[in-house]
């Protein structure tokens, strides 16, 4: 018994040493993986006395108070407090489109999503200042803020992409019979440790994050969950750009001067091998990011990889240069695509990843 007592005392003393704090980094940082007794809510919100007029967009596309501490009118100012040029609270300098750390990407490289800073990308960025706009290929006028696309608290999708956009379900959680909520994502990733089934809620999600190694400077996109062509990033984008991801052409006025005529979109969410032109697609040295089946990512593209929106476009903004026919027309130009009708070309680049129409040539090799 005495020996046992000594062992117990030694074990207890050892416990003093073992009670050192454990590793706790969560790559989502402040953006999720919350425990039930978290205090982090209070860092940004006031439940009853919030003075901020900043809103969030609910599932019915309505604006509701975000109950924020901040009083600024613009959500982006709130976000740029951490994700601005100084990147004072994040490794991702979203404003300038630069990755500012070394662990989950290449320090100093461009973010996969591009930039917002007009000194870098001009006006070639998604609107983020709260202006209401109608998306190309869409119908609804949408208030565009950071929160239009991202759920700051986490979601079932890759990169905090919202589960409901413009009133359209593009992810979310399904309640099981025993009361659990299982993710039903639209967008997943091939980054190491990414959970194929999407992000779980609460502690389980925090545990997933511990194994996750995002890459903010090398796109490692995945095809849709279960290779469902009705999901994936293209379907997610189509929540606003509704006519860009469909089964065929649709008739509408694209505000490009051609009027209300049939419009034929480039296919998305399709394997590259679907192309049956006279000359095969040139994908042996493809520099554009394609979506690869979950768990099979390699640096080189293959015939089964999908082309989706992010293959050609950057989601935040692009600094690529357009000229001549490549300039996107101003919507008021009576002679679209030329700039000859007294209205100059819009000089927008549609957030394309390569100058002019390099994205076309990258695959089609004409």
């Amino acid at each position, binding site marked *: 018994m005495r020996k046992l007592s000594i062992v117990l005392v030694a074990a207890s003393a050892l416990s003093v040493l073992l*009670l050192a704090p454990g590793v706790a*980094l969560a790559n989502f940082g402040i953006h999720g*993986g919350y425990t039930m007794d978290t205090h982090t809510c209070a860092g940004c919100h006031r439940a009853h006395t919030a003075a901020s007029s900043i809103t969030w967009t609910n599932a019915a596309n309505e604006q509701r108070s975000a109950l924020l501490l901040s009083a600024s009118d613009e959500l982006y100012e709130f976000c740029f407090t951490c994700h601005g040029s100084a990147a*004072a609270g994040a490794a991702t300098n979203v404003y300038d489109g630069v990755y500012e750390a070394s662990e989950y990407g290449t320090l100093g490289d461009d973010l996969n999503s591009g930039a917002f800073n007009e000194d870098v990308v001009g006006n070639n960025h998604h609107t983020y200042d709260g202006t209401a706009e109608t998306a190309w290929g869409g119908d609804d006028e949408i208030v565009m803020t950071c929160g239009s696309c991202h759920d700051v608290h986490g979601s079932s999708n890759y990169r905090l992409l919202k589960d409901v956009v413009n009133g359209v379900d593009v992810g979310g959680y399904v309640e099981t019979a025993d009361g659990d909520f299982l993710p039903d994502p639209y967008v997943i990733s091939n980054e190491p440790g990414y959970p194929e089934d999407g992000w779980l809620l609460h502690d389980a999600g925090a545990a997933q994050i511990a194994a996750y190694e995002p890459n903010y400077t090398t796109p490692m996109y995945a095809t849709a969950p279960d290779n469902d062509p009705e999901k994936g990033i293209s379907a997610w984008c189509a929540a606003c750009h509704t006519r860009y991801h469909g089964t065929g052409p649709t008739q509408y006025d694209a505000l490009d001067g051609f009027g209300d005529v049939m419009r034929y979109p480039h296919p998305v969410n399709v394997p590259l091998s679907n192309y049956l032109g006279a000359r095969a697609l040139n994908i042996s040295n493809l520099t554009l990011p394609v979506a690869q089946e979950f768990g099979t990512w390699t640096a080189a593209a293959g015939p089964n990889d999908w082309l989706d929106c992010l293959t050609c476009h950057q989601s935040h903004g692009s600094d690529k240069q357009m000229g001549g026919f490549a300039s996107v027309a101003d919507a008021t130009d009576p002679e679209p695509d030329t700039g000859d009708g007294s209205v100059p070309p819009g000089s927008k680049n549609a957030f394309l990843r390569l100058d002019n129409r390099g994205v076309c040539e990258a695959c089609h090799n004409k």
Partner: protein
Amino acid sequence: MNGAEHEQHEQDPFGPAEAKAPWRTIVALAAALLLLALTLYAIYAYNSSRHLAAPDISLTGLNEVSPPEYLYSIAGPEGADALRDPMGVDVSADDLVYVTDTAAGAVRVYTVDGDYRFSFFEISDGKRKTLGTPVYVEVSSIGEVYVSDRRRRAVYVFSDEGVYLRKVTPADADEARLWGPLALALDEDDDLWVSDVGHSDFHQIIEFDREGDEIGRFGRSGQAERVSDVPGRFLFPNGIVVRNGFVYVADSNNQRVQVFSEDGRFDHLVQTSGIPRGLDLDDQGRLYVADALAHQGDVYLTTGERIASFGGQGVGPGQFLYTNDLALDRRGRIYLTDRVNHRVQVWGWSEPPPGIAEVAGQPALWPLLALLLLPPLLLLLRRRRFVVTEDFLEAMAAAGHIDAMQAGMRWSWKKRRWLWVVPAEEAALYEGRLLGGVALDDLLTAWEHSESDVLDLMRRQELPRPTAVLLVVAKRAGALCTQAPALALSGRAVGVPAYDARRFSERFLESERAGDREESREGAG
């Protein structure tokens, strides 16, 4: 009990009572296992939650004093040199205000009255010619201006007139390429303290001497779900101030200020609201915090009590939109960058602020751990207790073991101490007696008995009262020492092991001597 066992007990009433009470061993083992399990669970639970005892923080003192008042703002001039994105601020000993403008990639310099003097941004470190994204600024006691540049991954040092002097980076070339300097502080010796957020897993504080050589570093990354989680770990530390042997670190994304000794040992926490960024301390030891999301400045005692808040959200005078850094001048005025309002605000106390309390150490884990250690320690220190009869004492004295009985009462690493007990009713029997040269008053301890237990035992076992008293006390002590076989048998009948002098010697004294002999042999070998 079968017939053979009964016969054996008839023949030998002495000896341990294990056969009659194996449950005691089982219970002891179960208790030990339970304790061990609880200890392991405590380790698991703590490591899971990374939770320390909550800090003793009171906000009741908030604004019991008049908070600082808004005085004026610094913004100008119009045009290219206008402040766009002021992030960091410091005030030199000769009353110049240095402000980093991250968007402009420059440092703007003003008088404390707000008159614009000049800007600087040129560097010549062999690779770059201009600042990239200057974030924080600190002015040394000799007027050198230190500027952290996250994009350029260096701390640049300028003269007070903005002439580039040198840069500070870690000595290791790979680390210098990858680190991310953010917050700055200079201590009384002008040693430079820098927060490094370049690696997502290793947010840390690095100290350099005046020559730029590293002195030390501490910390790594960690997310605190609760304010007291993961002390010593940071998530984007944006403010440092070093004073009086303590290092105050604004652990911004964990929404707290952590306080360390200068060698990096965690001392205590100050809970803040919103996102604490810039820090400073006044000569009274009051801690000033710029809170970026609460749009205000807060003043704390270093014990953690918030005594004043000032500012608030908005675009008017005295209102902030995302303040980021603050500094004090030698008059005690408070300068705060007001980032989205593109200005620096100057505040001052309208009346002398209250004094400070002593810095208190943080009550933390040790009381809890002490509680955990207490049960096994008590078990270890618990004495083995024997109820003795007069005849046993005389037999031990005759055998020359009475000294060993007395020696056994003293502390030893080798065995548990002994306690010799007699019923209080019989204590008078031993008063003033010497046995083998030992005073029995010193040897024996008198215990009271439970009268109800005695009556119950008398009724159940049909025992005379003195025997019942003895057995009740023996049952409580756990062992009986007697030379009387009948008494020993009665003891065993109620689950008390009994020993006569011979068996006691064999059981306890011989094993001890054998241990001593073994140790002697090992020593000789």
